[in-house]
């Protein structure tokens, strides 16, 4: 026996193994294909041998060949053989091969079921592991159904290695066999709290993947995930959870409110960029889901934008890219906050990385305003010139058009400029977007009446220079614009200066080389021009011009009659005959102009693209009903056509069952579509009915203002958009000057006694008036159009099947099929499986003896039923929610119209829902639900409970009376405090957390649900100064510091100040000034004196807050210091404006000179060992907060980062802007916290420690 094995292996060693194969292929570079085919022949021989080792070797080589693109499916059976080897080595080769080339239609897969099951239950964990890995790649619905139960058992395996693999593979099983989701879910949920972090991470992974597709089913898990988020330290898990929350918040706004604080804290404390980025992303998602404009969240937005700015400014291109990506999400809801970073984004447009430029382009979309549109577009046009012949240029082109046309051309003040831009764009070679430019030209010319004359002139020039556009056949993308040009010139020919010349241009022989649909438009519009020429010559005694024109038509049109394009041919021959007839009349001196122009009379109205879709179906019309009953098969065929053609057919009717064969129908349909597409009257492909040639009275009523003549109408040659920029500039200046004059006059009248004032505030949006008034005709919509826009989901999405209610209790029928061992029963099981498959998914819990009968019923019926039940259920949930929350309107539950006649639902589910509601609602609400009541009893007194209220109160009318009262009370208190502070001349500038009166208690209230308290909210903004007009909040010394430069004098501190307008008037001309001290100076622009103030770069409408940043230069940072400052501003009412002043004191703590700097533990240890640092320590008594809160506070308020944390001991690190290292060792025991600190600058350390002490003495 042993001899045989040795002999076999000796044979084997002369076979080629994988390495030999690879080597061989590398040595046969010239005839690789031939060499491989001989190898495949060898492999085929090897596979025929009995020796499993030889087979495994062959399969191993096949796997390699598969990677090179060779089909190896013919060896599928041999792969199965190798998989079933008892040796791990071969098994692994077999499974690898299977995972690389098996798929659902591989038929031998069904042979593997038993083998896989055997491997899954193998005592060797690696056999199991390899089987799971392989299965994850080729699982089929059959395998999933047969093995689901085995895998579920493995989820509770003793070895974490198996557990985590089993958990992960369940996702694949769910996808293939959705019925397994409900029975397996409880165990999956259990695994979220598995002691092994790997298993936990796998479970999070699976649930996140599931929830991403059907988020609403997983809302009930939110509290669990919330807990994980606050407790987990694994960044992978955190990222997944945070991403999941991003998907859940749109469904449940209350969740978002709860999330925002812990997320903000994470943003401040984490050093991992990936985590920071995901946090910012989710915060953005939360803010989007919350109704916008909530004042409380402006800080969060600011934080996000600020962090993103740091990312974008980073030298790492990846961070830059992601920063821009996230910025574009903010842009949708909070364009204002992004706009302030316009400089940065414009800068990114010059980046060498195309991905980054594209992202920056996306952002530009939201940056534009009336004021800067021209400037931005000018910049883009420069880029267009530079980016010759790339896809990036096409992208630029579409962006320019997008930007200009957005929200109904809202930002365009001068349409002549826009037309010139469009015309300039036509000079791009080889762009694919000719049709886009064309449709813009059409749209503008049709909808902006005032511009028509100018547009027509430009289009005529275009037509004249058509050879420039069509010179090269490769550039035909752009010739689409001729389509628009021809149509505009024809339709609005009354504005043409010289119609005859244009007509001549349109009938040049070269036109015949254009695509058919453009020629067709040419021909049609030539006829229109012809009509115009005739009319202009009418009454002219000399009729030669008119007759010459007719002759021109007759000479040129035959070219088009010969066109291969049917449309062109048809129109041309029709018009040709018409012109010939007209010529005859002309020779008889008959006046024809009137009649000819009647052919093209009438005004075209723009029609909304969706207009047709929105025409409501008239009552009583069933579009799905047969107009004629389909004939039965037996009926004689000759009778049918009669019945069909005698009746009038309404539009929209379904294609009927007629004699006309399908081909013919398709052809006709195609032809009709073609025709519609080629017909310029079908604007934007919206067919028929709306384009009626009639005098619409509405159009005439709209006053069309005369065009301002200061702008020259005629631009020689092709227009240059640049000159408009200049003109616009001048115009605006003129306007501004006039305005100033007026204002000055006013002011003089009002208070002549006051001193000089500067009026240099930036021009606001409202100040800009369009160059000439344009009435943008809105698109027509049918009367009583339906408002709904339904976007259907992809019906083929495999995740649709996983949209399963997971809160319902399991029914017996849903248990996963367990294969029995007795062969006699085996035949039965597939049938049973089939049954469960059809009946299982959403079978309600209530089951009686009818159950079995029901099972056999039609699948469809069952589904419908379960849907109904679901609906009812939801209805129920909603009711439950109402009970708890007192009928809130924002409860995101689908309204069900079904009457609620069902019996009471299983209590467990409603309890779960109420749990979630309870967890989400910010305060306990008196309720008749027993459960909630008990929890409420456990919760602290209302005073404490209302803690969270100030945060949510303004926009939540739902909160109960008790709560609002108490929160009002709180508010009053707050106000008093503020007043007191003011009286004390704002001596206190320490960290006054404007949230802090909430957080701590909130977590207590949540304590019923969670074991570990979430972090209380924190904010670094403290009140700087306040009066009846304005409130200033300051974030002391942001972390943006310039330390790159000279460490001695290059130290800067950036102070962010939020200005909030509290009064009802407009605040403008704000000026921020600080009295410099020896040590710290406010950085002023060059040329400004040491006592000049800085203008705050924005104005504040009532109720709005905005943030400005000021840079200070600091010399010594070892001591805290105070700076006196003043803010002056003008309060502007409708009729008057007053000058106001507010004093404040800036307090620079030593903490504010620290920058959060991550530090690795080894570097930290080295630092401590170096002996350069001097120590100091402090003890804090009576600190009554969890250790992680404590750490978070230190991190947040004092800019430290945690290096390492072991139980109740942590090392922390931070660095000053001048490069001092500060190391802390924080220990806690029985409410006593001891902090040992080391720093190379003792006085700085002493001050920092004092400040830490102060922070904790305040809370």
């Amino acid at each position: 026996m042993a001899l045989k094995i040795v002999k076999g292996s000796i044979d084997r060693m002369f076979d080629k193994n994988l390495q030999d194969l690879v080597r061989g292929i590398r040595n046969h570079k010239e005839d690789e294909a031939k060499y491989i085919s001989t190898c495949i022949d060898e492999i085929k021989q090897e596979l025929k041998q009995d020796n499993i080792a030889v087979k495994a070797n062959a399969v191993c080589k096949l796997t390699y060949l598969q990677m090179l693109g060779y089909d190896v499916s013919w060896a599928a059976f041999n792969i199965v053989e190798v998989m079933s080897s008892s040796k791990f080595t071969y098994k692994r080769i077999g499974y690898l091969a299977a995972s690389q080339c098996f798929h659902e239609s591989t038929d031998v897969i069904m042979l593997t079921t038993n083998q896989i099951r055997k491997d899954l239950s193998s005592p060797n964990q690696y056999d199991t592991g390899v089987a799971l890995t392989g299965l994850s790649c080729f699982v089929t619905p059959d395998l999933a159904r047969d093995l689901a139960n085995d895998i579920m058992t493995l989820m509770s395996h003793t070895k974490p290695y198996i557990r985590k693999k089993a958990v992960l593979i369940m996702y694949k099983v769910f996808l293939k066999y959705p019925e397994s989701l409900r029975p397996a879910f409880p165990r999956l949920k259990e695994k979220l709290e598995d002691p092994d972090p790997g298993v936990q991470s796998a479970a999070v992974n699976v649930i996140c993947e599931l929830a991403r597709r059907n988020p609403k089913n997983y809302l009930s898990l939110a509290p669990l995930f919330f807990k994980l988020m606050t407790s987990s330290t694994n960044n992978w898990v955190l990222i997944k959870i945070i991403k999941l929350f991003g998907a859940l918040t749109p469904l449940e706004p209350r969740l978002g409110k709860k999330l925002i604080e812990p997320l903000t804290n994470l943003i401040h404390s984490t050093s991992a960029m990936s985590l920071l980025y995901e946090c910012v992303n989710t915060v953005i998602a939360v803010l989007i889901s919350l109704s916008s404009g909530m004042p409380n969240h402006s800080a969060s937005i600011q934080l996000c934008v600020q962090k993103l700015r740091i990312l974008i400014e980073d030298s790492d291109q990846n961070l830059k890219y992601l920063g821009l990506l996230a910025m574009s999400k903010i842009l949708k809801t909070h364009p204002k906050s992004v706009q302030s970073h316009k400089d940065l984004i414009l800068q990114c447009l010059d980046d060498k990385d195309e991905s980054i430029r594209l992202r920056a382009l996306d952002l530009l979309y939201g940056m534009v305003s009336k004021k800067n549109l021209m400037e931005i577009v000018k910049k883009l046009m420069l880029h267009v010139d530079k980016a010759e012949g790339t896809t990036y240029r096409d992208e630029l082109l579409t962006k320019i058009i997008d930007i200009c046309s957005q929200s109904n051309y809202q930002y365009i003040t001068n349409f002549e400029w826009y037309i010139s831009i469009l015309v300039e764009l036509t000079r791009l070679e080889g762009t694919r977007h000719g049709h886009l430019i064309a449709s813009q030209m059409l749209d503008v010319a049709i909808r902006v009446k005032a511009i028509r004359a100018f547009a027509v002139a430009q289009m005529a020039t275009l037509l004249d220079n058509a050879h420039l556009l069509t010179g090269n056949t490769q550039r035909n993308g752009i010739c689409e614009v001729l389509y628009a040009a021809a149509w505009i010139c024809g339709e609005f020919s009354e504005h043409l200066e010289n119609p005859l010349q244009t007509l001549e241009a349109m009938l040049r022989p070269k036109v015949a080389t254009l695509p058919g649909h453009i020629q067709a438009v040419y021909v049609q519009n030539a006829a229109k021009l012809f009509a115009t020429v005739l009319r202009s010559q009418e009454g002219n005694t000399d009729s030669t011009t008119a007759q010459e024109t007719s002759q021109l038509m007759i000479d040129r049109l035959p070219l088009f009659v010969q066109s291969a394009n049917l449309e062109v041919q048809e129109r041309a021959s029709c018009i040709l005959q018409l012109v010939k007839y007209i010529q005859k009349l002309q020779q008889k001196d008959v006046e024809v102009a009137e009649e000819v122009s009647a052919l093209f009379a009438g005004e075209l109205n723009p029609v909304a693209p969706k207009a047709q879709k929105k025409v409501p179906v008239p009552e009583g019309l069933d579009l799905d009903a047969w107009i004629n009953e389909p004939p039965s098969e037996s009926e004689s065929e000759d009778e049918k056509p009669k019945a069909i053609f005698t009746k009038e057919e309404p539009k929209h009717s379904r294609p009927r069952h007629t004699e006309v064969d399908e081909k013919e129908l398709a052809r006709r349909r195609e032809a009709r579509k073609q025709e519609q597409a080629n017909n310029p009257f079908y604007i934007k492909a919206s067919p028929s009915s709306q384009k009626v040639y009639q005098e619409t009275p509405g159009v005439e009523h709209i006053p069309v203002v005369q065009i301002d003549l200061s702008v020259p109408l005629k631009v020689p040659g092709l227009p240059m958009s640049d000159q408009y920029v200049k003109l616009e500039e001048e115009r605006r200046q003129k306007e501004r000057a006039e305005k100033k004059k007026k204002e000055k006059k006013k002011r003089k009248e009002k208070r002549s006694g006051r001193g000089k004032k500067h009026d240099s505030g930036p021009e606001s949006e409202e100040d800009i008036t369009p160059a000439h008034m344009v009435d943008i005709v809105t698109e027509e919509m049918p009367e009583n159009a339906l408002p709904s826009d339904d976007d259907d989901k992809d019906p083929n999405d495999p995740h649709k099947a996983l949209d399963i209610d997971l809160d319902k209790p399991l029914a017996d029928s849903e248990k996963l099929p367990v294969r029995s061992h007795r062969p006699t029963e085996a035949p039965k099981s597939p049938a049973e499986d089939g049954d469960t498959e059809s009946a299982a998914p959403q079978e309600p819990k209530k089951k009686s003896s009818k159950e079995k009968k029901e099972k056999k019923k039609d699948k469809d019926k069952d589904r419908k039923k379960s849907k109904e039940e679901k609906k009812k259920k939801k209805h129920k949930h909603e009711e439950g929610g109402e009970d708890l929350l007192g009928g809130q309107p924002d409860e995101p539950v689908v309204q069900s119209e079904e009457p609620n006649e069902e019996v009471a639902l299983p209590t467990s589910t409603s309890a779960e829902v109420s749990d979630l509601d309870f967890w989400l609602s910010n305060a306990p609400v008196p309720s008749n639900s027993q459960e909630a009541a008990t929890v409420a009893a456990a919760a602290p007194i209302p005073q404490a409970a209302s803690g969270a209220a100030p945060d949510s109160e303004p926009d939540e009318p739902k909160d109960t009376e008790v709560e609002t009262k108490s929160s009002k009370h709180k508010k009053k208190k707050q106000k008093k405090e503020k007043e007191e502070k003011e009286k004390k001349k704002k001596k206190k500038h320490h960290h006054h957390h404007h949230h802090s009166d909430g957080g701590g208690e909130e977590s207590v209230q949540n304590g019923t649900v969670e074991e570990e308290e979430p972090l209380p909210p924190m904010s670094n903004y403290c009140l700087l100064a306040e009066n009846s007009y304005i409130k200033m909040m300051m974030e002391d010394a942001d972390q943006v510091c310039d330390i790159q430069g000279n460490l001695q004098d290059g130290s800067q501190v950036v102070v962010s100040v939020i200005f909030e307008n509290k009064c009802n008037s407009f605040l403008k001309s704000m000026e921020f000034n600080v009295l410099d001290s020896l040590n710290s100076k406010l950085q002023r622009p060059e040329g400004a004196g040491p006592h000049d103030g800085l203008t705050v770069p924005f104005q504040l409408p009532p109720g709005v807050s905005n943030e400005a940043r000021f840079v200070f230069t600091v010399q010594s940072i070892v001591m805290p210091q105070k700076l006196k400052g003043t803010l002056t501003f003008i309060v502007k009412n409708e009729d008057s404006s007053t000058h106001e002043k507010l004093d404040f004191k800036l307090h620079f703590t030593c903490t504010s000179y620290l920058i959060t700097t991550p530090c690795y533990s080894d570097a930290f240890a080295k630092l401590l060992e170096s002996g350069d640092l001097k120590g100091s320590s402090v003890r804090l008594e009576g600190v009554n907060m969890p250790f992680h809160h404590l750490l978070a506070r230190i991190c947040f308020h004092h800019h430290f980062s945690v290096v390492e944390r072991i139980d109740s001991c942590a090392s922390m690190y931070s660095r000053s802007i001048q490069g001092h290292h500060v190391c802390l060792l924080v220990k806690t025991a029985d409410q006593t916290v001891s902090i040992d600190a080391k720093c190379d600058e003792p006085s700085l350390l002493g001050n920092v420690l004092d400040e830490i002490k102060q922070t904790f003495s305040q809370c």
Partner: protein
Amino acid sequence: MIKAILIFNNHGKPRLSKFYEHYSEDTEQQIIRETFHLVSKRDENVCNFLEGGMLIGGSDNKLIYRHYATLYFVFCVDSSESELGILDLIQVFVETLDKCFENVCELDLIFHVDKVHNILAEMVMGGMVLETNMNEIITQVDAQNKMEKSEAGIAGAPARAVSAVKNMNLPEMPRNINIGDISIKVPNLPSFK
């Protein structure tokens, strides 16, 4: 979800391809070619994300790649994955390869693609991230290799000897094409635990 993991060299030769969705061999080759085309024309100092790998999935998907000396490591992922996280994962993968092959170079991947697959299987399973801890991955890989050795036992000895002889007279097996910067830590991404 990770849709596919591809490794190819500077000339587009595939060194490993793992698709978590089924495609025909031809499509797979096409995807590799196109991905190479997209990735290879990018400069060294541009960002590591690419949109528009239209062949796999569509708009939801991104290509995230890293370039080490002669090799490109490309992950095609959908929006549920964190971009920076995947970049880290690639780094973990390469570092693991470096440990397992002792100073990995392209030749290791060429001749031992099966081993690379086995290592990858301990990190990513069916398109989902299984393990990110390098030590854990190496432990499991080593344990399996040990098992393989014990199974080969005496019988495997002659084959190993022959293989060693075959490798001996191969001048084409230089080990100096080292992946130079492979052990360099990623600057901005503190690695995951």
